[in-house]
């Protein structure tokens, strides 16, 4: 556990909170993409290359794409009160 991992993981929490609280859904999706990529890097640091590869392909790839398509089909704004 080096300082690099600490920073990455702290960043992870920040990104997660950002995903939840950013009102623009497309922006949130992009943040989620970054979150997934960082998660993949963390997995690599934790010596799990297989999982990292999968997380990158699925989390940052397919899932994000699906989110974007869904937002395109529905609405970009998260309605608020």
């Amino acid at each position, binding site marked *: 556990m080096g300082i690099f991992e600490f920073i990455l993981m702290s960043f992870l929490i920040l990104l997660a909170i950002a995903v939840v609280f950013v009102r623009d859904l497309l922006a949130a999706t992009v943040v989620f993409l970054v979150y997934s990529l960082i998660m993949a890097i963390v997995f690599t640091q934790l010596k799990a*290359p*297989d999982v990292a*590869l*999968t997380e990158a*392909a*699925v989390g940052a*790839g*397919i899932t994000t*794409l699906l989110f974007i398509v869904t937002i395109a*089909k529905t609405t970009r704004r998260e309605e608020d009160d």
Partner: protein
Amino acid sequence: MMTTVVIQTIARVVVPFLQLFGLYIIVHGPVSPGGGFQGGVIVGASMILLALSYDLSSAETKVSHKVRIAMDSTGALLFAGMGLLCLLVGGVFLEYGIIPLPMAPAEVRGLMILLVGVAIGIHIMALAASLFLHLAEEHDT
């Protein structure tokens, strides 16, 4: 969508490489990070890229709905079939070592693990594309 010539050309160039890379990952699953699932996703993503850069129908025509369903089922059946084959030759479900091939049991297992990867790959590449395409198509209703 983004149907500019540039993107189309890039996609045209990139897609074969992506697919090759995906296949490489599937086949090299046993020795390096990756495997059927990851490779399958990458190949599937290449199809999605194709769909994005052209339009949806061209991806449809390249790998039609029926073919995807068939690939989907075939992948799953292949995996299950390997398990059931072990039952047939008198072993336990998924006990690859018992399959009578002229090799050491460990090698048979290795071969089978590779085949499993291929089966998963076939399955996932069809599915990943399907999931995306179905979602994306929804707009014209």
